[in-house]
């Protein structure tokens, strides 16, 4: 029994899966915090009334206010972004992101989105996946490292690596054999590196054939018990979601009609029909009216049951070969995609939940090699040769910067699209901006470790950038959060010499913080975050008769109002009421 459990829980999974899940979650969460959550901050603590999700939290936390909420959103977003850009995130740092994100929803029952709770569970799982570098996740344990010294150290380590030989169930004989094999591999690698003129696996370019072979190599495997935990956690969610829909109202489609505000038959000609395409397809088979709703009601339950089963089975797929399982997981992928894309199409107003789940479905259910090939193409790797189109020759800094600029500019382009397209715009921007960011953050422009002076410059740039961005976004609490992130970066730099190798890695986090500053500024200024925040604050103060506060909020709202939607009339009304009361008109900075 114990052996079986070890095989199920600790059995190998493709390292690219947890690696991508961690990076994608952190990056998406960063934008999610800035774009969709900060705008709701005005509700927090209004009138001095608040109820946290847990009674003990009410006793522990400071008075909740818009500034506290915005501060937590900005801090969590910046932290997530920096971790995603940096290399091999320490677990405690992911733990801090988990804590602050959890606090962001738990501080008040005003946030009742269940997927915020789900993201806390996901972060809990991701906190315990193996912390890997991109090379380890995509190229495997023999992936080259930074300096010749480090590469030699590693080869020697590997020759006497106790991990492999102490795997569960290893006998003394097998341990000896494994040690011998590791040593042989290390010798072979050194010989091969020496023959190809590579020094410690720097960024020299492989021959075309070998690079192509590396691109399509099988995905490296790792033991990751937390991946099984994550699969189980998501399966529980889908299972309960299915269970909750097995009541008669759901199965008959009545509840779905109620959610979508639709009648049994097609809506009136001038009314929007969120089920239009489904209706057309099913109508071609003669399914319409009540049978269509029965089919929809039952179909949602089936889809969620298949997804639940898929997430339970998926962690086992990388270590076994089975056509039946592969087929089922492809079905699970298609059902998950159809369900979540359908939810987005129907505009169910569930935040970015669908996009997270689409990403997880792809990462869990797609064949590992597909994910590895795409990731090797996308992510600049030390020793990756020509596997990626982001291979930068010396002097590629300008090209990297152009890609960065275009990537962030895409976020501004998102303003032109509909709100539901925002996550896709973020993905597009990340596809463009991430490779050069990672290239800079990991110092891939040179073979050796960057000298401390460069790291100190990066730290100063990062700290300054996040401090300035926090102040520039003009939301209460953002400046404090920016200064807090900057302060943490500086403290970490001051403490870095205490632990060998920390300073080098810190440079990557500093670049991450600088990029987070740009991303924060663009996210807030390219969207209606400030407009939504200030007009809601104005409305709330107005309802409660706080005229001066309402006036200030409306003035600010009008500064950020989209064309044709301003609240000038409200601003004038508040000014007139203040004048009638004989109260001074507040100065608005």
């Amino acid at each position: 029994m114990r052996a079986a459990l070890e095989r199920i829980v600790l059995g190998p999974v493709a390292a690219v899966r947890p690696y991508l899940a961690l990076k994608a979650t952190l990056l998406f969460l960063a934008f999610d915090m800035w774009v969709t959550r900060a705008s709701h901050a005005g509700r927090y603590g209004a009138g001095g009334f608040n109820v946290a999700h847990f009674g003990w939290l009410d006793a522990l936390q400071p008075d909740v206010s818009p500034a506290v909420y915005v501060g937590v959103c900005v801090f969590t977003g910046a932290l997530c972004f920096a971790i995603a850009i940096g290399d091999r995130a320490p677990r405690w740092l992911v733990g801090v992101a988990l804590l602050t994100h959890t606090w962001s929803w738990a501080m008040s029952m005003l946030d009742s989105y269940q997927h915020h709770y789900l993201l806390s569970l996901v972060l809990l799982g991701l906190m315990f996946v193996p912390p890997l570098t991109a090379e380890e996740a995509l190229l495997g344990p023999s992936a080259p490292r930074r300096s010749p010294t480090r590469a030699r150290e590693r080869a020697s380590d590997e020759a006497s690596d106790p991990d492999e030989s102490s795997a569960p169930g290893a006998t003394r004989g097998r341990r000896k054999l494994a040690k011998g094999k590791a040593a042989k591999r290390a010798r072979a690698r050194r010989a091969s590196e020496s023959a190809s003129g590579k020094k410690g696996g720097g960024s020299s370019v492989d021959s075309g054939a070998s690079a192509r072979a590396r691109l399509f190599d099988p995905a490296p495997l790792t033991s990751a018990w937390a991946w099984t935990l994550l699969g189980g956690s998501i399966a529980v969610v889908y299972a309960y979601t299915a269970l909750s829909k097995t009541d008669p109202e759901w199965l008959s489609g009545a509840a779905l009609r109620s959610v979508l505000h639709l009648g049994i038959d097609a809506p009136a000609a001038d009314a929007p029909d969120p089920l239009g395409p489904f209706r057309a397809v099913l109508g071609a088979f003669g399914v319409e009216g009540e049978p269509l709703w029965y089919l929809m009601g039952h179909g949602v339950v089936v889809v969620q049951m298949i997804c639940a089963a898929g997430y339970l089975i998926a962690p086992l797929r990388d270590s076994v070969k089975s056509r039946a399982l592969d087929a089922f997981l492809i079905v699970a992928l298609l059902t998950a995609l159809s369900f979540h894309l359908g939810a987005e199409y129907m505009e169910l107003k569930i935040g970015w939940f669908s996009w997270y789940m689409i990403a997880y479905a792809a990462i869990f259910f797609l064949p590992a090699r597909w994910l590895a090939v795409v990731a090797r193409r996308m992510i600049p790797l030390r020793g990756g040769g020509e596997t990626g189109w982001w291979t930068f020759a010396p002097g590629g800094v300008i090209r990297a910067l152009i890609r960065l600029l275009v990537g962030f500019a895409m976020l501004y382009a998102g303003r032109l699209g509909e709100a539901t397209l925002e996550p896709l715009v973020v993905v597009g921007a990340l596809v463009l901006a991430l490779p050069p960011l990672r290239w800079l953050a990991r110092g891939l422009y040179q073979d050796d470790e960057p000298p401390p002076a460069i790291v100190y410059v990066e730290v100063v740039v990062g700290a300054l950038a996040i401090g300035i961005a926090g102040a520039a976004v003009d939301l209460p609490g953002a400046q404090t959060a920016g200064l807090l992130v900057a302060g943490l970066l500086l403290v970490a730099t001051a403490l870095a010499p205490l632990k060998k190798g920390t300073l080098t890695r810190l440079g990557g986090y500093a670049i991450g913080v600088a990029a987070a500053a740009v991303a924060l500024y663009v996210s807030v200024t390219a969207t209606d975050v400030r407009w939504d925040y200030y007009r809601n604050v104005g409305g709330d103060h107005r309802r409660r008769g706080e005229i001066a506060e309402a006036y200030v909020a409306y003035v600010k709202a009008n500064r950020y109002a989209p064309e044709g939607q301003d609240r000038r009339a409200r601003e004038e009304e508040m000014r007139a009421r203040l004048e009638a009361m004989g109260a001074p008109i507040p100065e608005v900075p």
Partner: protein
Amino acid sequence: MSDEHAREPSAAPPRPPRRMLAFGGLGLVALGVGRLLYDALSLQRSVHAWLPLVAGAIALLAAAIWLALDTPVPEGLVRPPPASARGRGLAIAAVLGLVALQALIPLRYYLGDDAYDERFSWRMFSAVRVHDCRMQAYDEVSGGARPVQLMRLVQVGWVTTMQRNREAVLERYLRWRCARDDAPDAARVENACVSPEGRRTRLVWRLDCAGDEVTREDVDEPNDGAIEEATGVRGGGR
């Protein structure tokens, strides 16, 4: 690059029973889906179709586990499992414990007696939101009841949450009201709702400001008419 570390998992030789289990599972899932389609199209609420569907999923999971147990762990993992038996035991305990905990937490809603608190239940489309509710808060002073304009006191989001009969919020509101300098003798909230099927409920929450116990009373409502017009806040909680 040598792919010694990343070889394709060497599958165990195929065993007919295991293959039967896997493809049988797929078949059962397909059978369940087919039966569901039939039931739905003939306007029947499906009952029997769930069995092959769930059985098929369990068979597939069992086949995957069986296959995994028969397949040797490849060498050269990027990160091997914990070396010590204790470390491996802790990892297994963490996975089993945390997944079990997550499976248990929603039962608080599904098996509990508070149908209004849907938090942590993974009920993605709320059953409470679709109710049409009319809520009114009162301060009781010298035997009389004075209506309270909630929208002028607290953020509108709290009013919506109270309309959904969220017990913790209603209790906190009553205590908050009683903690004022000019506290009334008692604070009270009445919430009358009609479900989409026409089922009517009226809940009354009350706190005597001299005491400490919040009482909740379910008032019987006749199912024959619209919600009584009042000066309170109306909404379906959207």
